[in-house]
């Protein structure tokens, strides 16, 4: 099918090579980076507000990281050769660092999870029999020391891993921004702000996801939603969304003010091809509205009923999750809607439902981490420590 075109495009420029999968990849790694940050705010910086969901955040980061390579492999023309990026990397390419970054971050995350859940694993092994016991015993890797001293060492290691995990998570995600930002061929991508914008929006999406998932998990488990946790998450979310939106606007404003050659193309892109996904969704519905709602939560929060605050935080988070997705879409797809001839545009791009890289594949990939999270929760309950913590408090007069 020949897409609708206007102006003059280089004849090879009518194709969208980087599809929905490449939109999904930075979206997923962004959620990983954001969720990891929340867990590290507790484990490294000791922010007690995040204690109730620090483990859950870690599990969320892990489940999303586990599927992060799937959209990439699905995108590759030759996924069976994908391993060559790690085996025979061509280091002049920014993409060649991917394997190294992904693998090292994955190992750090895996190690941190093991240390965080180590005592739980041992207790579960002790409390079960048969196959279940063998399974947990295998997870414990033959270490059954739960003494006070061992736990203290655990905590030190966790703090160390969580600390080096922060720059690693930032690298893994900021680097995706760099892949786009360092291409001089494309004026919509080529800006040193790109990795920074990607990073801040990653924090936004990760925190927003946790606000949503935490509330749902508490509803399912019948635990109370911690007022402090939501308030703290909303505060950080507001901060990061302001940073993210400011940078996104700054890029546009600079381009507009400079009135350089590329602005002719980009202004047309923003007001035509991306008018809905950029102006309506990324800026207004997903930007301005959650900004106001979160401002209410942050500034007026203490006077608010818990339910109202939770609902406002929930709505803003859902809108921001959409905002970050539209930002990824606008970068990845937007950058391919115009030709490098700087004279022509592709009018629309609608991914097919059943295509290899289509909507259904994207939905299937995006749903997988939630299923993984449910399995993780069944194997290693992330809120089990709340029950323990809540038990003595409920006995208090």
């Amino acid at each position, binding site marked *: 099918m020949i897409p609708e075109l206007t102006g*003059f495009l*280089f*004849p*090879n*420029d*009518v*194709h969208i*090579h*980087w599809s929905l999968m490449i939109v999904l990849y930075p979206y997923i790694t962004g959620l990983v980076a954001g969720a990891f940050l929340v867990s590290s705010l507790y484990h490294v910086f000791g922010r007690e507000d995040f204690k109730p969901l620090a483990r859950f955040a870690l599990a969320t980061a892990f489940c999303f990281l586990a599927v992060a390579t799937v959209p990439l492999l699905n*995108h*590759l*023309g*030759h*996924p069976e*050769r*994908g391993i*060559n*990026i790690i085996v*025979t*990397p*061509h280091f*002049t*390419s*920014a*993409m*060649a660092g*991917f394997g190294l970054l992904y693998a090292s971050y994955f190992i750090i995350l895996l190690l941190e999870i093991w240390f965080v859940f180590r005592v739980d694993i041992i207790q579960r092994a002790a409390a079960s029999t048969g196959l279940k016991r063998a399974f947990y015993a295998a997870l414990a890797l033959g270490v059954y020391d739960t003494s006070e001293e061992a736990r203290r060492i655990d905590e030190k290691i966790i703090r160390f891993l969580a600390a080096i995990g922060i720059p690693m998570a930032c690298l893994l995600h900021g680097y995706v921004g760099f*892949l786009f930002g360092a*291409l*001089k*061929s*494309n004026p919509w991508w080529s800006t040193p702000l790109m990795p920074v914008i990607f990073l801040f929006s990653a924090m936004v999406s990760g925190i927003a996801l946790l606000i949503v998932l935490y509330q749902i998990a508490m509803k399912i488990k019948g635990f109370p939603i911690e007022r402090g946790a939501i308030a703290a998450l909303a505060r950080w979310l507001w901060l990061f969304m302001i940073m993210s939106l400011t940078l996104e606007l700054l890029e546009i404003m600079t381009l507009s003010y400079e009135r350089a050659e590329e602005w002719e193309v980009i202004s047309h892109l923003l007001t035509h091809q991306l008018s809905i996904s950029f102006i309506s969704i990324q800026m207004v519905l997903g930007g301005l509205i959650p900004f106001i709602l979160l401002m209410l939560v942050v500034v007026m929060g203490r006077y608010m009923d818990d339910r109202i605050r939770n609902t406002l935080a929930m709505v803003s988070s859902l809108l921001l999750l959409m905002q970050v997705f539209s930002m990824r879409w606008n970068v990845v797809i937007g*950058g*391919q809607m115009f*030709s*490098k*001839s*700087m*004279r022509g545009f592709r009018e629309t791009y609608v991914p097919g439902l059943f295509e290899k890289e289509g909507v259904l594949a994207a939905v299937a990939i995006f749903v997988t981490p939630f299923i993984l999270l449910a399995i993780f929760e069944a194997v290693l309950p992330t809120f089990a420590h709340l029950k323990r913590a809540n038990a003595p408090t409920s006995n208090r007069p």
Partner: protein
Amino acid sequence: MSEKERCSRESGPGVAKSRRDFLKQSAACAGAVVSFGVVGIILPDDVLGDETVDYDWNKHRWVYLVDTTKCIGCGACVRACRAENDVPEGMYRTWIERYEIPVEGEAHVDSPNGGELGFHAVTSGMEVRKAFFVPKLCNHCEATPCTQVCPVGASYTTRDGAVLVDDKRCIGCGYCIQACPYGSRYLNPTTRTAAKCTWCYHRITKGLKPACVEVCPVGARMFGDRKNPDDPVNEMLATRRVQVLQPELLTKPQCFYLGLDMEVR
């Protein structure tokens, strides 16, 4: 006795020798095996029996020159390229752009089917001040961003200056397509790998010209060798005023243009 047999026999346990002898022989054996292996890899059977074997890529430095003032937009080059290189429909290794600069207003540019079937008469209705054709192809840039970004080194520059893609190594990520500022690359839907103009590498290494140069009826497309002092293209590059596409990107194209207009990007 083959190299391998000799190696194993001489280093057998019954032969008394000094440590130095042993090391020497081991090195010789390893060298023989390695060189045998390398020759086996870089010279597969189908190439060994071919005249390309005599080709020395150190003795050439290919360069392409387009005289836009001569192009008549017949499209023979685009057709020849498709036939010669089996270019899939809708993809282009070379194409022709038509520029119509009106007395007033914006330039009108088109390239219907990449100019493959030639061009119809102007129907835009505007009063045209000047008009011209510009043939385009991969610029085989010396500082090319496309090979820089290839994560597995499947895109590479040969010593004689051609930028090629090894479709046995290409993973089909499309990064090179995004990095090329000239729109010269495409993803071959059959091989699912990146593809582009090779300057007909299979022809030039046999002493022939690229197909597009061969068929151009007006000599608008020229191909030369910078290492050959008698080459007429070299002479033109030395004496005429030449331009490259998007020089501000500093990709150092090795495809030069005569009579390029400021409207051309």
